[in-house]
């Protein structure tokens, strides 16, 4: 592959949109020249979506902290750029050194959404790297995937050399070390993979044969004799012990979540039955307040950002959240830095927290009731009483907020017309409440952004056995809601059910669906997460030509003992636990937060991972 020269790209850089996304000199980007190992971390979507991804930034810093290793970054080029690269026969390049991707030792893809999978194939092709793992010998880079999508890696299995399951902080360097040792030898790629599959958390798909029954279901998974029978996810037991990057990259171009992102905890104990993150990121691991405060201030100084977000799956659940916010506002308020809390629980405590941070800047609030009735909320284990919620909303209005976002899902198991009406009722009650509480001068400012997503069942959740709702039925529900929610105070937002259909096929797909992925990409499917680029008719044809029946993957209730493609992975939770949660959902029985009472999910062990809560901090009163 020929070297790319910056001036070749500069020749046409002013002809593409947002050229600053292809520059290599963002603040805090790391530029190294020589190393024993060069890796490129790739977010297979546009820069504006991918850059802020915290996982990528964490790995970038961990690898670059090692003197002898280099990590650079690459993103999916926007369609105008991709077209130029193809026309001029220039390979896709890494940002930092503008090297063609094929010149790296390792390509590490983060798998954040099924709808980015066609972009992965496109990135490989733009880099003139063969798509299938079996077509790549040791002269090509090793292609690795990680992140949430790796919990069911099978739809991508033929394209990847290996997947990393679980937390990446420790394992990434173990892989690099093995790679460097292998590189010195004359051994083949298969030898390297054989070595790597012994590392806990590494899944090498080519070492496993998947056999199917006539009915189409998976019959058995046969590992090669030297490969582990199950791949156990990696867990970092104590987040205080692993590096967290404070010198985060500050982009030139506007990106989503354009701010410091501080991960205050990982894992969630609530056990919402639809939520994959809530299951796979267990156990709960909080960082210490002292550690967080130090990191927060270092980050703000190193980046110059005017906003910091505390990220986690449920920020108000961080046990020392109030102390931490109060502590940090001493630093942020005088500097005009705002704090944002992206995922708040639905209660008055959360409103109090929001009030604490609103002294600097009043952003909008987000709540996720998910379902319209108490009955359905019990089914999904997101139990809260409507009375309490209305009380919370009243508190929100009285505290001066005029605008907030609500997230709902449709197509949840056991959903009826009543539950849909419940969404309408709840929204109506909130509007009425707003109009009665808000002073008349400000009534015009009342705005509810109501986000509705079709439910897609995910692996390793109690609903992994469920059928997904049919797209036409979802559309009918959308029309119903849109009709009933016509109000100048409501801004109704909707996810395309056909995008969810494709997402669903890959979410619970097996190795066979990879063919449809390849065919769809060949026919031009790209950037499927963007409604302006998503083209369902391509997918319909691709699925048909690959003999893939979407209903097999989507519209089928699975039996208790069905072997799932993702059962090759052991996330530490017992399958029996997930099944009992599934059964409890029928009975509308709730399961407590595991911090209140152990629910015996199987993740904690005396010597291994367990819930870690931050130490209580005694605050000096000012």
């Amino acid at each position, binding site marked *: 592959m020929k070297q790319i020269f910056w001036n070749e790209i500069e020749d046409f850089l002013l002809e593409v949109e947002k*050229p600053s996304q292809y*520059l290599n*000199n963002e603040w805090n980007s790391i530029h190294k020249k020589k190393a024993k190992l060069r890796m490129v971390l790739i977010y297979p979507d546009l820069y504006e979506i991918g850059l802020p991804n915290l996982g990528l930034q964490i790995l970038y810093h961990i690898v670059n902290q090692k003197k002898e290793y280099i990590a650079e970054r690459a993103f999916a080029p926007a369609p105008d750029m991709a077209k130029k690269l193809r026309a001029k026969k220039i390979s896709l390049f890494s940002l930092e050194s503008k090297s063609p991707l094929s010149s790296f030792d390792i390509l590490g893809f983060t798998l954040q959404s099924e709808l980015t999978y066609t972009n992965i194939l496109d990135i490989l092709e733009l880099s003139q790297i063969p798509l299938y793992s079996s077509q790549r010998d040791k002269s090509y880079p090793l292609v690795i995937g990680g992140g949430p999508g790796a919990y069911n890696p099978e739809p991508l299995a033929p394209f990847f050399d290996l997947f990393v399951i679980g937390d990446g902080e420790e394992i990434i360097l173990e892989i690099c070390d093995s790679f460097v040792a292998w590189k010195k030898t004359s051994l083949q790629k298969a030898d390297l993979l054989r070595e790597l599959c012994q590392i806990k958390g590494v899944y090498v798909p080519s070492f496993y044969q998947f056999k199917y029954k006539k009915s189409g279901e998976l019959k058995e998974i046969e590992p090669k004799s030297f490969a582990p029978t199950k791949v156990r996810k990696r867990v970092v037991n104590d987040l205080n012990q692993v590096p967290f990057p404070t010198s985060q990259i*500050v982009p*030139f*171009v506007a990106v989503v979540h354009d701010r410091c992102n501080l991960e205050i905890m990982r894992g969630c104990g609530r056990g919402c039955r639809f939520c994959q993150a809530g299951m796979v990121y267990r156990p709960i691991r909080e960082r210490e307040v002292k550690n967080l405060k130090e990191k927060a201030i270092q980050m703000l100084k190193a*980046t*110059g*950002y005017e906003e910091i977000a505390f990220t986690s799956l449920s920020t108000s659940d961080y046990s020392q959240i109030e102390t931490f916010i109060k502590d940090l506002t001493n630093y942020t308020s005088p500097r005009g830095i705002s704090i944002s809390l992206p995922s708040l629980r639905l209660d008055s405590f959360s409103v109090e927290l929001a009030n604490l941070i609103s002294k*600097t800047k009043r952003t909008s609030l987000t709540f996720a009731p998910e379902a319209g009735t108490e009955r359905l909320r019990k089914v999904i284990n997101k139990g809260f009483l409507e009375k309490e919620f209305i009380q919370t909303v009243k508190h929100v209005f009285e505290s001066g907020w005029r605008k907030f976002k609500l997230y709902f899902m449709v197509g949840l198991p056991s959903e009826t017309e009543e539950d849909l009406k419940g969404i309408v009722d709840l929204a109506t009650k909130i509007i009425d409440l707003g109009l009665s509480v808000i002073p008349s001068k400000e009534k015009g400012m009342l705005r509810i952004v109501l986000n509705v997503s079709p439910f897609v069942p995910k692996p390793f959740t109690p609903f992994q056995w469920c059928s997904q709702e049919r797209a036409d039925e979802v559309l009918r529900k959308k029309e119903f809601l849109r009709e009933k929610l016509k109000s100048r105070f409501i801004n109704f937002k909707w996810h395309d059910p056909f995008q969810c259909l494709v997402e669903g096929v890959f979410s619970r797909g097996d190795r066979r669906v990879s063919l449809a992925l390849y065919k769809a990409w060949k026919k031009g499917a790209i950037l499927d997460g963007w409604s302006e680029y998503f083209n369902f008719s391509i997918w319909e044809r691709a699925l048909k030509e690959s003999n893939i029946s979407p209903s097999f993957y989507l519209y089928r209730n699975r039996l208790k003992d069905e072997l799932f493609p993702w059962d090759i992975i052991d996330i530490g939770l017992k399958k029996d636990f997930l099944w009992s949660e599934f059964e409890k959902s029928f009975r509308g029985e709730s399961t407590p937060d595991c911090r209140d009472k152990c629910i015996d999910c199987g993740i904690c062990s005396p010597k291994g991972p367990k819930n870690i809560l931050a130490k209580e901090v005694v605050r000096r009163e000012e």
Partner: protein
Amino acid sequence: MYRLRVKYGKYGVGKYLSHLETIKAIERALRRAEIPFILTSGFSPHLKISFGFPLPVGYLSESEFFDLFLSSPIELKTFLNETEKSFPAGLKVLQAKYVYLKGKSLMSIPCYALYLVKGEVNPPFSLEVLEEKRKKFLSLRKISYFYRGKKKEVNVIEDILSFSVKARGEKIEFQLLLPLGGKRNIRPEILIDSFRDLFFKKTCFKIKEIWRKQVCYKSNDKLEDLLDFRGDERFKGDPHLN
């Protein structure tokens, strides 16, 4: 409160930044430098700062401006040192000077900008031909062009303060002094494109670089660097002006 007028440049990759991207990058760089800036009051406090006339994407510059309001005066040398460390690639503070607190904002001062446009010629021209065409060009009264689908006009005598061109081998260089500001604003490549289209073949030269070299204001019929515009004399008496 103190008002610091800062001249900065855009070099190398800086030319790909839009005006908004530039503003954001500079604000973050000022925060990193821990400059004692003032925050605006209100619901979303931000830096009290005002920027000069935007530079189009693709241009380089040695003469961009912003006025930054400070709560305490900081030594100019310290300011230059700190921003040197905190500004990202492509952006660089060149000079700074305290100006009268009150007075016209940067955007409302009628200015003139000196541009240097570098290009490549194929085949090379003789200097005589170029000079002849230049004179002919400047003897026109009006030059019309289309900008975003609208027909616009340049009034040659009023709008073109100077227009010179030199060539050497395959290199060609233009220098233009043009009005800059909200009332009247002429982009140099418009004139150069018209110049080319009127007298030469479309393909005969290509613009490679456009530099905004200096921004001036008119004082008693003389042009002075915008950095020296201190504001309204009526507001002088500020102890921190040097």
